[in-house]
């Protein structure tokens, strides 16, 4: 087990280095002149050259990367935005909680929905309820989050006034630029985004859980449990569910990573000031440090999350734990 952990940690470090390197190379090799961006329109050639030197852009790429890494690891700094001159760390500190609310809140709700629906579908396979669930799956998988978001926001928000159409409220206090705050307002404003965001994943998970549970029900050890005289309830809770949910843990880790990417759509539709929207904005401004900062931050998060999930899986499955 210890070996497994150490190996995973080393692998995580390696992944981190690889991801940052690739991102760095892509962005700094792209034919856009960061120095010019930073300097602004009114700069002359000499000014740009001076800025370039100041930014270290006239050094070889590997040296730039090295300095970036050093800045990152040694000073824990992601740089400074070209456009707003803000510390990227600060920008991320402001936007990350929004995305986290969306993603983790969404994950919570998608699991809340998909687990019971998936299990019930499996237990009552081919019944009306099961077939309805499968239709739901089809719709959820096929419909694009943007389309869903717009439809929901139109009907529930605009027409029926059940939920707000857009905007974000801070969980703790009213933040700059908005007039609402506190947990209730936060949740209220997140309802539509959560629904939009979770639909796709809920659909996928219903299908996955249903398949897993159905397969586990046919396993020999479930038959053994019945042969022992265990009640159907016991067979389900102790034997079927625990075993069929195990693979979900790993997949969840992977999907959170994907979800971070998908968050962009939902954040755009509902104007949530999260990482996704931040990236979109920075992209149109070519604000490279911010883009890079978001990518690095997300990568770190995904790597950590997957590591946690892997370790959790090893803890839950004695076959891996006791190798």
């Amino acid at each position, binding site marked *: 087990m210890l*070996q497994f952990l*150490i*190996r995973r940690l*080393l692998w995580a470090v390696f992944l981190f280095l690889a991801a940052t390197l690739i991102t760095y190379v892509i962005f700094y090799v792209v034919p856009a002149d960061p120095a010019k961006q930073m300097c602004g329109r009114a700069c002359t050639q000499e000014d740009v050259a001076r800025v370039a030197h100041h930014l270290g852009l006239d050094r070889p790429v590997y040296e730039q990367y090295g300095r970036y890494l050093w800045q990152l690891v040694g000073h824990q700094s992601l740089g400074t935005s070209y456009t707003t001159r803000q510390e990227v760390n600060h920008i991320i500190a402001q936007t990350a909680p929004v995305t986290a609310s969306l993603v983790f809140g969404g994950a919570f709700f998608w699991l809340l929905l998909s687990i019971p629906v998936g299990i019930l579908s499996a237990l009552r396979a081919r019944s009306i309820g099961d077939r309805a669930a499968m239709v739901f799956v089809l719709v959820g998988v096929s419909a694009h989050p943007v389309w869903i978001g717009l439809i929901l926001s139109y009907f529930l928000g605009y027409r029926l006034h059940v939920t707000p159409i857009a905007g974000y409220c801070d969980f703790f206090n009213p933040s700059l630029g908005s007039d609402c705050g506190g947990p209730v307002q936060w949740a209220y404003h997140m309802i539509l985004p959560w629904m939009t965001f979770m639909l796709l994943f809920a659909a996928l998970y219903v299908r996955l859980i249903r398949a897993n549970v159905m397969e586990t029900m046919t396993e020999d050890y479930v038959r053994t449990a019945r042969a022992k005289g265990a009640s159907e309830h016991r067979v389900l809770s102790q034997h079927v569910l625990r075993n069929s949910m195990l693979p979900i843990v790993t997949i969840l880790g992977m999907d959170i990573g994907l979800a971070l990417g998908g968050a962009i759509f939902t954040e755009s539709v509902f104007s949530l000031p999260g990482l996704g929207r931040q990236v979109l904005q920075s992209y149109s401004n070519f604000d490279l440090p911010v883009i890079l900062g978001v990518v690095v931050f997300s990568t770190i998060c995904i790597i950590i999350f997957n590591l946690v999930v892997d370790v959790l899986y090893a803890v839950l499955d004695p076959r891996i734990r006791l190798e």
Partner: protein
Amino acid sequence: MDPLLVVENLQKFFPITKGILLKKEVGSVKAVDDVSFTVERGETLGIVGESGCGKSTLARCVMRLLDPTGGSIVFDERDITRLSRSEMRPVRRELMMVFQDPYASLNGRKRVGFIVAEPLDVHGIGTEAERKRRVQELLEVVGLNPEHYNRFPHEFSGGQRQRIGIARALAVNPKMIVCDEPVSALDVSVQAQILNLLKDLQSEFGLTYIFIAHDLNVVRHISDRVMVMYLGKVAEVADGKTLYTEPKHPYTGALLSAVPIPDPTLGRQRKQIVLEGDVPSPINPPAACRFHPRCPRFHAGTCDVDEPQLRPFAPGHEAACHFPLEHWPMTVDEVSRAAERVAS
């Protein structure tokens, strides 16, 4: 004496690595450890043993599906031990294999005609029309309807699928066929059909067989000579009749007494040696004689110190044991001594 296959000191070790970044070899699974035998042209050599004895690994080494770690394999007077893939190609026409699982060894998405013709295709034999004719011929030879050329494997029963596998092996007129547990997955009545078929084909086409199985009855029936393996080594080799009437190695004796006899009166009369414990893992085999911890005839100081070598007891009968069985069936005394040893 016309050996088709000569295997000498064959070894196949699978390394076990440990380590976080740089994997270091800390040991190895000695799946086949210094095995030598010959197979005469036209005969059937049966290889029998329990799990972990190495018989399947041995088969795959002979077929060069695995690369041996040491030793040599000489097939039809040609050393095939270290031939490259392309060099092995022409050899593979002569050396074919029939597998255990009739459900897994046929590609379910291909038609039977394609499956049986594939070896012909691979070796570039015959035109398409000639191949088709050959396939139909083969289907008939193995007792299937040649008109089922276009059917899929799932339309056949287990026994029929095994026949397809055999037809496939025969397609290129091989000299030798290695059969790896070909009847283990079949019902008893179907098993008899396949065994009879294999025998018929052998006389009709002058084939040489290596027949691997864990069922002693089956091996006895079809083999001319039988080799008993235990934990990667050869325990005993003899012709069919002698092995079963005068075994020398105590493991052979234990195997023979463990085989259930389909005759209640005979069965209850016989004196059984029942071995205790499980077959040990080939990762850490016991020192010297691999069988010594479970052996009813163990003598401390010899069996756990010196590894017994294969030595002849009669022409064609060899066993690797310091204290071979003296009588068979064992006398009452011997059985009780064995039971005591086993109990301790």
